[in-house]
């Protein structure tokens, strides 16, 4: 064999092999880049009919599995919020699809809100309120998803929610699956789910009332698995939860508004 032939016979297979390796290693990055950038048509083409279901199922599995989530009937969550170095306390009691009570305590003042399926009140003594005030019909309507202790993605079909996979985007540098969930004419949630862990990074909520449209974001992190196999985000927005109890006994009296 000629000298050049020796070179070629040794180099070409290696070169081809490396090219294949590099190509394969780049493919997923390219897909992510294309989908998040210029070529929206390509993104649409990758919107396969069952993509949303697959992603949601994986998300639910990451949280502990559908059976575990469906077994949640009530929740108690207790945490703190750091406000300029001071710790405010927050407590939330929720009986699924029935009622919820949120308390926020700082410097001896406790603000609270109560949401039921057909009514709601809030009390904010820090602002000088003397008595609990009723929520408007719009506020009650917008608060209803908060009564869903399982999460709105659990059994979304049975609940009548519409799901759409929107492709891959980037949230704070991380590639995410984007799932849009339309609960009703007033509420649309967009879930940004981490590609690797299938855990939610952010939920973006669009709320439409007759007077205005509002947007809010809640960021999720510090995921921890409980001893009984539930995975919870222990940090949501500014709140660091210390305790999350599944299916506690809750006294209904706390859902009755009194000063």
């Amino acid at each position, binding site marked *: 064999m000629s*000298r050049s032939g020796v070179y070629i016979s040794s180099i070409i*297979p290696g070169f081809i*092999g490396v090219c294949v390796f590099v190509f394969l290693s780049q493919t997923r990055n390219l897909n992510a880049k294309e989908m998040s950038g210029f070529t929206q048509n390509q993104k649409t083409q990758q919107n396969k009919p069952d993509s949303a279901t697959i992603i949601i199922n994986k998300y639910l599995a990451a949280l502990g599995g559908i059976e575990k989530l469906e077994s949640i009937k009530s929740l108690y969550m207790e945490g703190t919020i750091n406000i*300029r*170095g*001071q710790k405010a306390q927050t407590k939330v009691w929720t009986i699924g699809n029935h009622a919820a009570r949120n308390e926020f305590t700082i410097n001896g003042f406790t603000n609270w809100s109560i949401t039921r399926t057909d009514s709601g009140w809030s009390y904010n003594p820090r602002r000088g309120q003397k008595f609990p005030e009723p929520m408007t019909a719009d506020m009650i309507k917008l608060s209803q998803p908060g009564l869903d202790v399982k999460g709105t993605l659990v059994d979304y079909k049975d609940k009548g929610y519409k799901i759409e996979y929107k492709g891959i985007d980037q949230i*704070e540098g*991380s590639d995410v699956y984007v799932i849009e969930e339309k609960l009703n004419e007033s509420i649309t949630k967009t879930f940004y789910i981490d590609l690797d862990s299938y855990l939610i990074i952010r939920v973006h909520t669009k709320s439409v009332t007759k007077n*205005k449209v509002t947007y809010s974001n809640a960021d999720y992190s510090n995921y921890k698995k409980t001893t009984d196999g539930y995975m919870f985000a222990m940090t949501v927005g500014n709140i660091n939860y210390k305790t999350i109890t599944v299916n506690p006994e809750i006294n209904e009296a706390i859902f009755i508004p009194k000063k």
Partner: protein
Amino acid sequence: MRKPHLNFLNMKRTSFCFMSFFILSSSLFVSAQQKSPINSGTFDVMQARWLGPGTMSGRITAIVGNPADGKTIYVGCAGGGVWKTTNAGASFKSVFDKYVQSIGSIALDPNDANTVYVGTGESNMRNTVSYGNGMYKSTDGGDNWTKIGLDSTEHISKVLINPANTQIIYVAAPGPLWCDSKNRGLFKSTDGGTTWTQILYTNEKTGCADVVMNPTNPDELVATMWEFRRKPFAFNSGGKGSAMYKSKDGGKTWTKITKGLPEGELGRMALAISPSNPKHLLAIIEAKATGLYCSNDGGESWSKQASTSNVEARPFYFSTIAFDPKDDKRVYRPAFQLSVSDDGGFSFTEASDEGGWVHSDHHAIWINPMYTNQVWLGTDGGVFLSNDRGLTFTFIQNLPVGQFYHVQCDMKDPYNVYGGLQDNGTWMGPSQYFGGVSNGRWRAFYGGDGFWAQPDPTDENSVYAEAQGGEAGRVDMTTGLVVSIQPMQTKNESKNKKFRWNWNSPIYIGAANPHNLYMGCQYLFKSTNQGRRWDRISPDLTTDNKAKEQQEESGGLSADNTSAENHCTIFSVAESPLDANYIFVGTDDGNLQITTDGGQVWNNVSGNIVNCGIPAQTWVSSIEPSRYDKNTLYATFDNHNYGDFNTYVAKSTDLGKTWTRLNNTEFTGFAHKIKEDLKNKNLLFLGTERGLFCSINGGDDWFRMKNHIPDYCPVRDMQIHPRTNDLILATYGRGIMIVDDITPIRNMSLQLAQKDVFLYPMGDVELSYGKFEGGFPEHDGWVAGNSDDIPPIQYYFKKRVMTGDVSIKIFDASGKMLKEIPATKRKGLNKVYWDLRITGPKTATGGTKPDQGSFIAPMVLPGAYTVKLYVGDSTYSETINVIPNKNGKMSDEDRKAQYAAAQKCMQIHEALAVSADSINDVIERVKSMVENDKSNKKLTAFLDTLKSFKSKIMASTQTSIFADEERLREKITRVYATVCFQEAAPTNLELDNIELLSDDVAQSQQKAKVLVKEYDTKWKNKIKPPVTR
């Protein structure tokens, strides 16, 4: 005899093959591994500030509103994307930041206002027009968009929706400006934009300029076709392809309309159909004699109307005419000015300036069909709103969509930015101001179309600015007076050599010698005394191609020669920061000329550039000589004038003999400017017509910067401030943007990016009480925020932290924790702020009003502090060296006195809190006892005593913020806040007050003990204990 090397190969063939494979594979594997992990998200936290201005906005190309509410309006801009208001202009939100920013047309589904169509690529075909990439659709009111085709049309003039069947959409696409293309004409979709059919097409030079639909019979359409072409040195509007057509079957078949239209070639034709009388149409028809034409038979035949110069003005550029939706006789002609007719277009009057000057040059109009008094007008300077049918207007002040060509900055503190705006002169504004940079802080100081603005570093009162065609002046900023400095021809010049100044002629101040001032036409001129004397230091540096110097013939049917088409001119000039004799010149006809002897000899290196893959003689849009090596330079090249939108940027390390093209799949848009960092030679920034890009490794890898910068923002120029390290952007449609302090980008490297966690060193941090504090917010349109007062704590995560907590704690030198700060967990750079204060005290609780004392804390004293970043089980530490503020007003003694006084206040607050806690607890217990034993008068009296004591130490009666109730707690907070928040030592009376309050607290403590003792001894075990929840 066998040759040794061949013997070696023969004997070791197998192992040699294996080694070759291994080595090659390894090297490529390693290089794949080391590919930059840095991407758009890495520095996303460094959000750009949108400085504006809003007081001088930018070209508006489309306006459409929701007639159902009259307050939801979409505004499309030439380079500023789409903005939406839902409150009739009280505020706007940018809703198109992920997509191209040049907007041609917007349409709302008449049956569902949440369904919005945007056609990208404005069709006001001036020389600096940008380009689009087709159609977009939103079904949620602009929150999300999907691209729906017609990608290659580049310019869309109208989107029309059939009101009877809103799945039917028509798109008029004039198509590409700079080259032949089949991607033009009239397109139709019958499925809401999913698929498209080209239903009217003439040839590759002719597109569809306009289309109107009979609202009562939507299958009846009239469309105009327009032949046009722009070249870098000429514009032609009009040709055999231009014609008017009518269809009665939704575009299946078309009839050419000629009856009553001008003879000969036609140009651009704008149409309007009266919604209240669809047989009545108007058209501005460009021809040898441009005019206003009227049809009363649905466009079958036309007749010429009398019209004014404004009505006929510049038809290729002013292509809008509209009827009042309810009044067939009321016609609006936005053009150079707004003309209004009340007789169906026979005669016109102009709008009034009573409500304030209305910017000239109009391209968009929307009349609210439910309230026709309301007229929204889109001009070259922004949006105006009328509530009296266009008689008077008010300016919408909160749209920062100015089109800057260039930006410069000075060294004042805070620094000012300077730049020239398309259509709108030259402006300066502060980078920061008290309460934020509002519209009123901007100042216009030169007229015409603005381009380069150069503050003189040797004379803080002088700025060089220009209008189009090189008309430059030296502005005295103290008086506003201007001295012209534009070099003029002299008898020494050839009589036939008229100076050729580019539309955007360079004015440049020497980087090595700031006394050097340069201006370029086809020659380079230099002045060393602020333009008082000029010397020509070059021959003609261009190709001097006579065929490209016939601008007086430019325009086609309508002469249009405003220096926009001037060609064979110098476009970019640069002086090496390392040697003032090294001067670099780039021309619009592709020459890149270099001198190393101050202009004696020039070397044209353009012939070498093509070897790196850049087309020959491509317009040189910028040159950046390196500040690290005088033989190294970077250059950007722009070939879009020939229909080539590729991104061309290259580097030479041998003064232009050889070039390496810098390329990346991420690049989009033709290149405007490359910038080398002032301190890190591997850090490069690239601005293009479609984005801002960054490389941290000398151009090997690039990422798009999207940190509050629209993904495809047109970036024409940029500067890096030498003192603040800010990256300042001149965007062509989003005003000036500033990315504060790029040090984290500068300090990033591929090696660093591989670390899981990295806590950036803090170095020295100055104590600061704030620099640009404001009072009440201004009502002044667009207000940009200021940069951070205090440098943030910055750390890097290779991946987002999904599990485990992240927090930051600050410790003093003794190891005592001063503050805990919530931390972020994003992938890439994170920024968290320590306000240089410790944690506030616990204050007394249980009153009827909240007290802010616990949120107040003093600043730390100068010294070394440790910041610890906790990531799960790992801890990372850095030292922060807190130093006094250089410009501060406090001595060391002042600081110590302040800190001591604050500490005293904290102590007495906490002492009072202890007392209050004990009393609160007793009150609750006694209350319950009283509930159980209401007849016990002594118990009730004791409760009253407790409450009375409590009411002395904190507000316990009033709840309203309008009812003051200052008790001991509130008094402590008042003096405590005073001490903590002022940049001064406490006064003698403040110190005395603290002593007084300290005594009061001590007395309260005693009293509290007495009351608690009374409870313990008299009541605690005597009465049934209370039931607790």
